[in-house]
């Protein structure tokens, strides 16, 4: 009897893992098979044409803009915030409050960020539906990611580095800048790379703040659409699954690249700390 139960449970375990792997392979496989025919040099670097047959270059450019702007703002703020939490703050109420806020930001669904961006950046600050409004919204979305990964990286820097440097008569600031930050750099980098993944995959928040104009953005204040929003719109409006899948391939390749570089960097980090 007990043996029978073991067999059934073991069978269920196998079944579950097969099911998970099968479904996930099917999704990636389907996107690739369905979209591969459309992938060409023209498709990636060509201008978009609403009548069909055009490329996705405007969406790639828009996606790159949002990545660059939000990281340029979020990275320094996130790193300095992590430095405060790890190197300066006395553990107490204030730190608890900051950590609570950071964690809460992580849990807010992106559609709420979209609502906030739409009323704050788009309307109140009069930016209009634009790349800049979307990027600022994304900045808040990735800020907790950068703070958390930087904090983790700072924790791995051995205390003896700090003591050694301070014992030589440097100030705290010099120690941070010349000793701590360089040795935490690989961890910080992998945090930044993770944020790129989050930005590339985001759709709802961008949909409500950047709009849907399918053209090369003239300025940061132009409305534009990113790759994910494009993939959504062509599916929703024209049911063009093939095109959506082709955009999907580009997205998956980007995510894959991001993951591989993050893994390589964290390997380097491990090597460095094991020395």
């Amino acid at each position: 009897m007990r043996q029978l139960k073991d067999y059934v449970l073991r069978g269920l375990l196998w079944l579950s893992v097969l099911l998970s792997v099968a479904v996930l392979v099917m999704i990636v496989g389907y996107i690739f098979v369905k979209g591969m025919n459309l992938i060409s040099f023209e498709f990636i670097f060509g201008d978009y044409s609403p009548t069909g047959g055009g490329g996705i270059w405007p969406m790639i450019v828009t996606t790159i803009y949002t990545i660059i702007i939000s990281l340029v703002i979020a990275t320094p703020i996130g790193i300095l915030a992590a430095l405060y939490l790890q190197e300066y703050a006395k553990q107490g109420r204030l730190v608890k409050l900051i950590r609570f806020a950071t964690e809460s930001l992580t849990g807010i669904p992106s559609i709420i960020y979209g609502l906030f961006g739409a009323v704050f950046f788009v309307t109140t600050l009069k930016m209009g539906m634009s790349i800049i409004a979307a990027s600022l919204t994304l900045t808040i979305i990735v800020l907790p990611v950068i703070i958390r990964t930087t904090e983790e990286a700072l924790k791995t820097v051995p205390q003896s580095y700090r003591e050694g440097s301070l014992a030589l008569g440097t100030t705290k600031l010099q120690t941070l800048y010349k000793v701590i930050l360089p040795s935490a750099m690989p961890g910080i980098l992998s945090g930044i790379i993770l944020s790129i993944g989050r930005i590339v995959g985001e759709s709802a928040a961008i949909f409500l703040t950047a709009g849907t104009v399918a053209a090369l953005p003239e300025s940061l204040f132009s409305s534009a659409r990113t790759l994910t929003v494009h993939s959504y719109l062509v599916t929703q409006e024209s049911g063009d699954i093939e095109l959506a899948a082709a955009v999907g391939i580009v997205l998956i390749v980007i995510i894959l690249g991001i993951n591989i570089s993050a893994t390589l960097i964290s390997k380097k980090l491990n090597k460095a700390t094991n020395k």
Partner: protein
Amino acid sequence: MSIQTNSVEIGKANKRKYFLEKVSSRVFLICALLSVISLLLIIGFVFYKGSHPFLVEGYSFIDFIFGTDWVPSEDKFGIFPMIVASIFATIGALIIGVPVGLFTAIFLAEIASKRLAKIISPAIQLLAGIPSVLYGVFGLAIIVPFLQNTFGLAKGQSLLAVILVLAIMMLPTIVTVAETAIRAVPNTYREGSLALGVSQIGTIFKVVVPAAKSGIMTAIVLGLGRAIGETMAVILVAGNSLIVPTSLTDSVRPLTTNIALEMGYAAGTHQEMLFATGIVLFSFILILNFVLAKISAKGGN
């Protein structure tokens, strides 16, 4: 004389250093406070906009929550169908996603050979990073026609389609977090149980899984958070009809999709009601976060 000027200069240099130290620690503090400020701004703006119709324009909050008609052109704003749709979709996704995800995590942590786990685990982690829109595209292209044909529906976009897409989408999150939790259970637990003559499967389900309980709960709550907040993928497969779902094959409109679908053209009270929809969604998430905090506090003990 020269010693004096020297010490004056050193004094000056030191003063500058101390000044820089002071300023920089303030700057760091301000950066850290930005996340608090952002959170307050988000809550402030969404609640201000969303509460306006009830506090100022005299709409009834009870009618908003329990009203079944959403006709903005006739000034009717009831989101009961969407609340029900969101809850059903989330619970349905949990019923499918949690056992499959949890069993997959158990398999990867306890039964799979190291080599097999080293292939499957990173692949599943990678899938957690795939843009959610693509899950929706897949759902519309494969799951929706499948349901349409299997159940002979006029339209395959339904509550069941939403449930399936969300279950698939929460899988990577649940597997990754639960696997980490199960691996963290000390080996002595397993050895002790095996030494008592308990089988491997018995050890896993009676000793290891209970020991990893708080981590597994965290995995479930995180998956839940992803499901309840998902928007764009859900729009593609939900059908978006404004009815209280009575069967799995009904077309539904969860809270998130209502916001995304109408925000583009809504104005005035209509727009404020979308923010109010956001408040309801926000409340669900806050409750979830609270539960998560309780769980991790318990795990800490």
